[in-house]
Every structure is written in C-alpha cells, then in structure tokens.
C-alpha cells in the first residue's frame, strides 16, 4: 500500500516543527475515500477534521429545495471540517470525494483538548486555519454587501433574479 503523503507538504503545517508534526500524525489516522464517497453530509455531524493530502473534493449545499448547488471544488492539500472544529459539530455543507482522496483524520474532541492544553501543534494549526477564515470573511462581507444592494435595488421591481442568484452563488466566499 502506498504511503499517505506527508503532512509537511500541507501549507497548514508548514510552521510546525518536526516534533509537532509527529505529534499530530500520532493522533490522526490515515483514511482513504473513493471517488463519489461522502466525507461530510450537510446537516449531519462533523466531528473530525480531515487534512487532505491528495485528491479533489467538491462542496455542495442544498440552497433551494430539491436542488444541490456546488459551492466549490478544492484540490489537495487542504483541510475540511475546520468549521465543525471551531463552531458546532454539524456540517453546513456536504463534502464529497471527486477523485480518490487520501487524508489524515483527527477527532474534533481530541483537537479541542489539545487546544485547551495550549498544545503548540494544535495552536499553530488553528492559527493557519484562522488566516484562511479571515480571507473568507472578507469575501463573505462583499457577498453580503451585494445581497443588500440587490435587495434594495430590486424591491418592488421585477428584475433578473436568476442571474443575480447564480452570480451570488458563484461569488460565494467559501
């Protein structure tokens, strides 16, 4: 069996020293998802953080009844499940393996314990996650500005709502 790619190739781990990476690797377990397999299901528990070292995942959300909207296609290396770690352990969107995906999975509870104990490895990982969230926040703020503008501009008028909606979804700050 081929060795799961190393964590040192994942940008989230580049500021961790060798010992800290080893600490994380010891806590995590290598896991493999086949193409089409669901990693998280929208609305279901999100109790693990996956550091994806190879493959591509897609993120979906049920925006309108009966329709599944693709929000993003993300290639390794990346991290999924970080929102469940930092907020409620419930997936806000579905994440699906698009190709064969190799990852390191670590339990949310274990990571939270490490954070409470000020483990440098966990703290550094969350610092990197925080940096990506800060950029996402900036993008989301702009999306919301757009929503508000459109709501104001279209009030009482019949406009091309479909175009706007698709635009909004495309510009999603995921």
């Amino acid at each position, binding site marked *: 069996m081929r060795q799961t790619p190393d964590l040192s190739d994942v940008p989230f781990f580049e500021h961790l020293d060798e010992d800290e990476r080893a600490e994380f690797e010891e806590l995590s377990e290598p896991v493999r998802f086949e193409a089409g397999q669901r990693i998280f299901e929208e609305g279901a528990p999100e109790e693990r953080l996956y550091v994806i070292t190879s493959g591509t995942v897609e993120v979906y959300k049920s925006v309108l009844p009966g329709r599944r909207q693709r929000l993003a296609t993300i290639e390794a290396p990346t991290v999924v499940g970080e929102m469940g770690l930092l*907020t409620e352990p419930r997936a806000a969107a579905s994440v699906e393996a698009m190709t064969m995906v190799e990852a390191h999975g670590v339990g949310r509870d274990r990571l939270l314990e490490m954070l409470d104990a000020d483990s440098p490895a966990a703290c550094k990982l969350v610092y990197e*996650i*925080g940096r990506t969230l*800060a950029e996402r926040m900036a993008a989301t703020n702009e999306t919301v500005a757009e929503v508000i*503008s459109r709501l104001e501009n279209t009030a009482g008028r019949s406009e091309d*709502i479909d175009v706007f*909606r698709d635009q909004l979804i495309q510009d999603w700050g995921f």
Partner: protein
Amino acid sequence: MEETLRGVRFFEFLTEEEREEFAEGSEPVSFGPGENIIDEGADQESLFVLVSGMVEVRKGLSGGRSRLLAEIDASRGRTVVGERGLLGESGASATVMAVDEVEAIRIPRATFRRMVAEGRPAAFKLSYRIARTLARRLTRLDEEVVEAIRELENRGETDMEAFRDRLITDWSV
C-alpha cells in the same frame, strides 16, 4: 496599560502575564470626532480595543451610498474592532469612525505576527479566539446568504425590510 486590557472581555482568556505581553506591544491612541479609526478598503492591520467614546461603523454600497451598520458605545463595555486584520491581509470591510472623542489601544499586526513567529502562547490563544469568532460569523452569514437566495426566489411573500435589517445587524467588521 495592562490595567486597561484587563477589563476587556476579549482578553479575559489570557493570564495576567500574557496580557502584559500584549500590553508591551500595544500603544494608546486617540481619535477626534469625525476621524476614521479604520478605513474601508484600506489595509487594516491593527486590532483596536475601544476604551472610551462612541464609534459608528459604516459600509459603502454600490452607487456611492453608505449604510450605518452599528454604533458602538465603548463606555458600555470595552469592545474590540479590526481583529480580522491581525490574521488576514484583505482590506477593511467597513469604515469605523469616531463620533466623539475616542480613546483606544492599538495592537499592530506586526506585533502580533512577531509574537506568533516567536511561538508565544498568548498570540496563539488570541488567534484561536479570533478564529472562533470568525467561524461563528461566517456560519451565520453563509446561512443568511442562503436565506437571501431563497427569499429572492420566493420574492413578494416576505417582509424584505426586516430581512435586510437582520443581514446588516449580523455584519462583521
């Protein structure tokens, strides 16, 4: 200075020594009425702890209009603005303006990043705190954008004004 940081809810998770580390790298600043503390679109590289005075938060909308997002009265519990700037590099999403005389404590990004580079636990604790705040806001905003899409889909059946106000209330600075 540590005295001033002590009362800040945002910093209550730090030990006394850790607050002191931040205090060493921070500086007191004051702003007159009408002066901008944070400029929308500009690089926003400091966290401000508002100690006294009143600020308003405004967001520019298309067509040169702007909208009041929040008024913050520092005397009713000190408040933190600009925390996203410590972690991210994107420009400020809104303008924060002093309404009257405002006193604040500024923690520059450079100070924070230096502490991170030195592996200081205080900096990581603060980044964990900011990451959690950002994650909560993102989750809420994402849900609301979804709701906006749904509302727009079924437009005409809901109270648009109330909906719009809710989006605005939950805004992050």
